[in-house]
């Protein structure tokens, strides 16, 4: 599903150049649930940004579902993001003046799905994250866990190939974190490919595979026995 070869990325900081990713090789098959771990500055967010086509690599290859991702224009990148990727952010990034339903429907709007179909689909995904009754509420009326579930519904609504979650539990207490992880596991059980960036060991162990990053290289890549989050809920 995802394949990257010898990926390099550096940032210019004034006259210095900061080499963040120093040759990453990585493969993820369909249906995998991968945790990307590393301390801050290890390059894990940069890697996720490149995977999310929010940023470009300096060199190396990136293939997503057989499509080479290279030299994308902003328009093309936006279209690919819409078609291939779902994003879940640490700070939820819901649009605060739109209801939960409207937020979930947004990627479908950019896909050009007709209004009625969009509403139905969005409602279906809200139901799936258990927030159907909250459809008309604004994000400010939801708890943190609920917000993240809305965000996950939004990421899933466009039916992406890969779900990218950047510290999805970073802003949540542990109970809520497990709820969110439980949801992510269930989505993965349905066969969706998910990448989770985290720095929490317990969260990482709820995935099926952990990739450790340090100073811009992968230092360890291991399969783990998945800990089901519903044990804690």
């Amino acid at each position, binding site marked *: 599903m995802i394949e990257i070869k010898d990926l390099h990325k550096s940032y210019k900081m004034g006259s210095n150049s900061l080499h963040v990713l120093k040759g990453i090789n990585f493969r993820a098959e369909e249906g995998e649930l991968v945790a990307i771990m590393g301390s801050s500055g290890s390059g894990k967010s940069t890697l996720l940004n490149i995977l999310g086509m929010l940023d470009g690599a300096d060199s190396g290859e990136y293939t997503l579902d057989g499509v080479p991702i290279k030299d994308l224009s902003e328009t093309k990148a936006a279209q690919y993001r819409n078609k291939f990727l779902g994003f879940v952010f640490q700070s939820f990034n819901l*649009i605060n*003046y739109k209801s939960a339903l409207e937020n979930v429907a947004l990627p479908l709007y950019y896909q050009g799905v007709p*209004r009625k179909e969009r509403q139905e689909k969005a409602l279906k995904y809200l139901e799936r994250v258990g927030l159907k009754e909250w459809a008309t509420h604004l994000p400010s009326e939801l708890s943190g866990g609920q917000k993240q579930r809305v965000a996950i519904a939004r990421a899933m609504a466009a039916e992406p190939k890969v779900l990218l979650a950047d510290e999805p539990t970073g802003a949540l207490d542990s109970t809520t974190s497990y709820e969110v992880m439980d949801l992510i596991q269930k989505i993965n059980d349905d066969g969706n490919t998910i990448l989770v960036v985290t720095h929490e060991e317990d969260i990482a162990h709820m995935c099926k595979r952990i990739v450790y990053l340090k100073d811009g290289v992968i230092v360890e890549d291991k399969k783990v026995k998945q800990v089901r989050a519903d044990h804690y809920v």
Partner: protein
Amino acid sequence: MWLFDKDLWSEIFHTLGKNMFRTFLTMLGVIFAMIILVLLLGSANGMSNGFDKLFAGTASNSLFVWGQSTSEPYKGFERGRRIRYKLEDAETLKKQIPEIEVLAPRIELGSHRDVTTVYRKGQTSGSSVYGDFPEIDNITKKKLVEGRFLNNNDIEHSKKVCVIGEETYKLLFEKGENAIGEDIRINGVFFAVVGIYKPNNNINIDGENAVFIPFTTFQKAFNSGDRMGWMAIAVEPGTKVAVVENQIKTILKAKYDIHPDDERAIGSFDMSEIFNNITAFTNVLKGFSFFIGIFTLLAGVIAISNILLITVKERTKEIGVRRALGATPKVVKRQIVVEAIVLTAFAGLIGFAISVGILAILNNVWGSGEDFPFVNPMVNIPQFGISFLLMVGLSVLIGMLPANRAIKVRPIEALREE
């Protein structure tokens, strides 16, 4: 067509409605600009209409020709010879110059601007007495207070009737006394009053105290033969008065043996010059108003752009999220430009409504145009259309500024901003 996309509009009204107060402040500049533009244009139009009303009744493309004294010796004649026209000249001119629409010959009792004593029951008035054809009414319209003006029947039968000025009426009659049908005496001849006119207080050629009698009656009563004092001439629309004026002078000069370079022998007055000057004045006024208005409007639209720039900065994160979710730069740009257009157009309409209201009030207060040239001050549809299109056009151009700013920030940077 994206223009009819319900979602785009709900998106826009959502964003604008979210912050009503700021939206209102943003629009204020354009509202005021539109008020200023429409008020200026409307007032200029009002003045233009006012002048039109002032001169209503006077044919704008007309001239007057009379005889003076020669200033050059020619063909054995000495200078200082008095030029006297004959009635047949009128026919000659009409025949030779097809551009002449109306030609009304006139004769005066005594020399030019002379007054004759008019009697009635012991009361007297020193009035100008004119022999006229009814056609004169097509060139300088008389506002009749009572009765009628001279007609062709009067001419044919050389009727002893007259039309008198209000001033003459006041001198000869008691206040409120009926004058129609009453006789007045001029040089021993009696004339029955058929009409009283009110002097046109703006262009006054005939004087306020005057008596008009049929030309043919004049000839018989005062034994003027075929003499003709002067001519009032209306020229076909679209023809320059000055051209006809020259043709007339050439013909008359040839007939009366006047030196071709003699400028004084034939007196003439081109009415259209006055009108051209006034038209030029009001046009400059209109142009100037438009100029000021458009620049005020530009300032207003720039204010909108400014606020949108701030809004875009505030919404950086939201825009980043939208782009991560698949909004293309085009979609983001379009939304901000359409926001600019909606704000401007809405503000423009509000300003327009307010200013039209103000103009209507002004019209009620001063719009009668009696003592001040200000009638029906209003903008016309093309003026409104042009300013509105210009405004929306400007807002598209100016909306591009914040729109470009919005897409310049890369989604990753927008998302990072906490």
